[in-house]
């Protein structure tokens, strides 16, 4: 892991010291629920993979894919607190309860 070179979107090399959260990506297979069953909706077209929603999810409902984008890893853990909704800089995730 320590020898791995990761480049960000602008092509700059990121070291572990610069951005440790970018090194903690999960390379395992992703099993996200289908959109209609998911408590959290993610709009990948607008997402810039900054990692804020995953870092501040209080229950660990969200996980990170190997490319850094979020996915719903534990749909039953979502408490609809809307933290991801409010903290997303790109308006790309909504965790509100459907009415």
């Amino acid at each position, binding site marked *: 892991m320590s020898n791995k070179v990761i480049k960000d979107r602008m092509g700059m090399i990121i070291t572990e010291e610069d*951005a440790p*959260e970018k090194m903690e990506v999960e390379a395992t297979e992703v099993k996200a629920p289908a959109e209609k069953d998911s408590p959290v909706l993610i709009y990948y077209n607008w997402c810039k993979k*900054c990692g804020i929603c995953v870092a*501040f999810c209080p229950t660990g409902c969200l996980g990170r894919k190997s490319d850094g984008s979020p996915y719903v890893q534990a749909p039953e853990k979502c408490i609809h607190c809307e933290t991801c909704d*409010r903290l997303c*800089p790109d*308006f790309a995730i909504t965790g509100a309860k459907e009415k």
Partner: protein
Amino acid sequence: MANIPQKVVHQYLRHDKKFPHVWCAGCSNGIILGAIIRAIASMELDRDNLVMVSGIGCSSRMPVYIDLNTLHTLHGRAIAFATGIKMHKPKMKVIVVTGDGDCTAIGGNHLIHAARRNIDLNVILVNNNIYGMTGGQCSPTTPYGAFATTAPYGNIEPDFDICNLVLGAGASFVARTTAFHVVEMQNYIQAAIEHPGFSMIEVLSACPVIYGRLNKKGGAPQMMKEFRDNSLPVTAVDKLPPDQVEGKIIRGILRKEIRPEYCAAYADLVSRVQVTGGKNDAKI
């Protein structure tokens, strides 16, 4: 793009603009724009009675994306243009979004004189400690010793405390919060819009791509965690020993008082002089 959500925030965005927006990954400007939209939506204000004014800078791109009456003006002159709007249409709610360099360096005079005059503007000052859009030059709020592209060996200038500056200039509503405390920010924006008189909210924001990288702050989540762990509400400051308060960001409403508002005073003056024809009052 088929499934763009129809939540509150998305109803206030201009969908004919290019999304995802222009800000870097992890930039707090989007969070602040979301808080402004939620505040406006929860107050159920008429959109025709709202205007958002901005200058030049990263944060000043906000009016491009929000569907209100908007004005994107000269560098540093956002408050000057907003004063003109408020004087012409005193019933309009004017929100000014500016950055730290825009408002305290280039437009510093407009800020202090609007505060002194107590004209009913709502200034949301997004402080990211650096000139982000132009490549990371040091701004008046870059902390002492921090790095910037024009300060590669560390900044040797002390930084501005913007809230103290505006308090000294006589503003009637001053608050400080950070981009992490979104609900608090939303409440302060609501309180500022309701407040009659000059109100300024300083929002500390994270610039992970330029300021964060130059100063080894980590990514966006690390910078947000720093805001969370390194700030104190103003009500807790008196109860804690001084060594725990030192170096922390003090959040909260620092001043809220009712003082004569400039537009109301001007309308008074006009009606008073019109009655007398200006003959008895003028002392020249």
